[in-house]
């Protein structure tokens, strides 16, 4: 490969055990993601989309396989090292926002900086900047329950991006929003992608998925198609040569 991938998953598998039964949430996944890509992950419920996203975001560890992040094998890191990689390289956005209810919008945005041990002065400066960028200045001292859904997700995005991560991982970011606010949030994410942030969005929304430059389709823990807008559909076979494309 000529230019190094930002993310490279090789034969990643993840199995959950529920009593006697096994769930193969991820089945031998191979995936390369380049810096600055905009990827939509789609597929039926339970197909392993969230598991894949958590794997990329280092919240979960694979049972087998190798995950290289920026050329570094991150499958061997200890929990504290993983936490620091998450802090510096990953930004998470969730369907249910996951804001801390007792903290104001500003304090929620500040949280990653606090955890990273940044000095107060620099923190307030960055938070003020973020509030401005996301149009939340007049909402800075409101608690999440005093904010609209769109505002909450904007706070969540501001929080996810305040440390300028390399990868932005969004799990159904518009799932709890109406179409108009959802579009607004998507435009924000796309703007961040244009600035160079790699964006991976899990979505059930076909229209939203179509906006991405690359669409990955999952079924039963397998990537069944991987379409890059400018390339042909047959690319799917190249990505996962060992796995035949399943017909739905």
């Amino acid at each position, binding site marked *: 490969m000529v230019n190094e991938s930002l993310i490279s998953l090789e034969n990643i598998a993840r199995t959950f055990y529920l009593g006697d039964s096994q769930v193969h949430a991820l089945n031998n996944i191979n995936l390369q993601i380049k810096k600055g890509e905009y990827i939509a992950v789609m597929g039926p419920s339970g197909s392993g989309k969230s598991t894949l996203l958590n794997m990329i975001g280092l919240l979960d560890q694979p049972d087998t396989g190798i995950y290289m992040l920026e050329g570094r094998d991150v499958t061997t890191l200890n929990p504290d090292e993983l*936490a620091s990689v998450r802090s510096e390289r990953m930004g998470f956005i969730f369907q249910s926002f996951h804001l801390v209810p007792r903290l104001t919008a500003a304090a929620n945005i500040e949280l990653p900086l606090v955890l*990273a041990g940044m000095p107060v002065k620099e923190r307030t400066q960055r938070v003020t900047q973020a509030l401005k960028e996301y149009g939340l200045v007049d909402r800075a001292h409101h608690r999440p329950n005093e904010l609209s859904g769109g505002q909450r997700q904007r706070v969540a995005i501001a929080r996810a991006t305040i440390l300028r991560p390399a990868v932005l991982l969004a799990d159904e970011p518009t799932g709890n929003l109406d179409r108009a606010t959802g579009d607004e949030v998507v435009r924000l994410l796309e703007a961040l992608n244009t600035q160079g942030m790699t964006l991976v969005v899990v979505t059930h929304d076909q229209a939203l998925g179509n906006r991405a430059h690359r669409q990955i389709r999952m079924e039963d823990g397998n990537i069944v198609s991987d379409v890059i807008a400018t390339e042909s559909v047959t690319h799917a076979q190249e990505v996962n040569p060992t796995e035949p494309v399943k017909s739905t």
Partner: protein
Amino acid sequence: MKISDTFRFAAKAATATPLRTSLLVLAMSIGVASVVILTALGDGARRYVVDEFSAIGTNLVIVLPGRSETRGFNPANLVGSTPRDLTIDDAESLLKLSGVARVAPLVVATSEINAKGKLRETMLVGTNSEYINICQLKMGLGRFLSKTEAGAGSTEVVIGAVIRKEIFGAENPLGKTVRIGDRRLRIVGVLAQGGRGMGMTTDELMIVSTATAQSMLNTNTLFRIMIEARSREQIEEVKSRVLKAITQRHDGEEDITVITQDAILQTFDKILNVLTMGVAGIAGISLAVAGILVMNVMLVSVTQRTSEIGLMKAIGATSAAIRQLFLVEAVLLSLSGAVVGIGLGYLGAGVLRQLYPTFPAYPPAWAVIAGFGTALISGIVFGVMPARRAAQLDPIQALSKR
């Protein structure tokens, strides 16, 4: 994460549930306050007793006739004669001993005083002029027994303030003659009101010279010999010298008991200290209960904040940081409980002092420190488990909780 941020975050988390937090602080503060108040009571009792005893006099060594039974069974006591009496000569011989500053013999009996047609039964004390110094009494009027006028012919009497009031009212009693038993005695002084000697009030005493009292009572024995040592350090030496000297005078038989005020004091001090600590220990149980409450509340808090913990981990919090946050929160709760409790304790002790002004119910410093320390330790001990549980949460499962 910086320490100051950890504290701020934990404090915010605690104040986010004001009712639960204040109940917890209340529980902890009741525990600490009960430790403070109960030890104030115990220590107050100790101080009260010590003060009372100190009022008897300083550096006091007291000789009692008869062997103390606390020194163990001695068959010689059974076959031997009845103990020899203490005499004035015994008392006078002690003056020569080194380390002895003053000696006052003591004869005590009840007798009747008859003056101005009034009759009253009261306590008669026969002693010498040193008694006032040894027992640190004060005169209200006139003077104490004189040194020069001793012997059986002395007609001086010093009366207590209450006797004076009852018999003479506002009249000046100095120089007046009173009848005590079959003697006619002349009042030379009145003791100041409220004095205490030998653990009893001096307000109703009549004090005459030893010889006078002995001849009135037709006896030559003494009730006690009171000795004042020159210094506190010499008390023990004086005690053994006195014992030796009198044993010698009594043909080598150890038939007296010598006690020191210091020893009595120390015994009481010890007993009451143990009592205070026991009481503090009982109060400490309520602190343990409060500690378990802290644990419970923190466990509930971890459960309620599961998704928050997951989020924190997703945005880069290490397990150690999460553990610290919850531990600090538990400690903050305990500490604020301790602070409030100490405040309440001091308030309670103050109220006690208002109600019983003579009772010195001041919380001892060690109790305050112990109450504070126990609260802190129970906060840490009972905070560890919830904090560890929070730190061990799997971020994905935590995040999926709504």
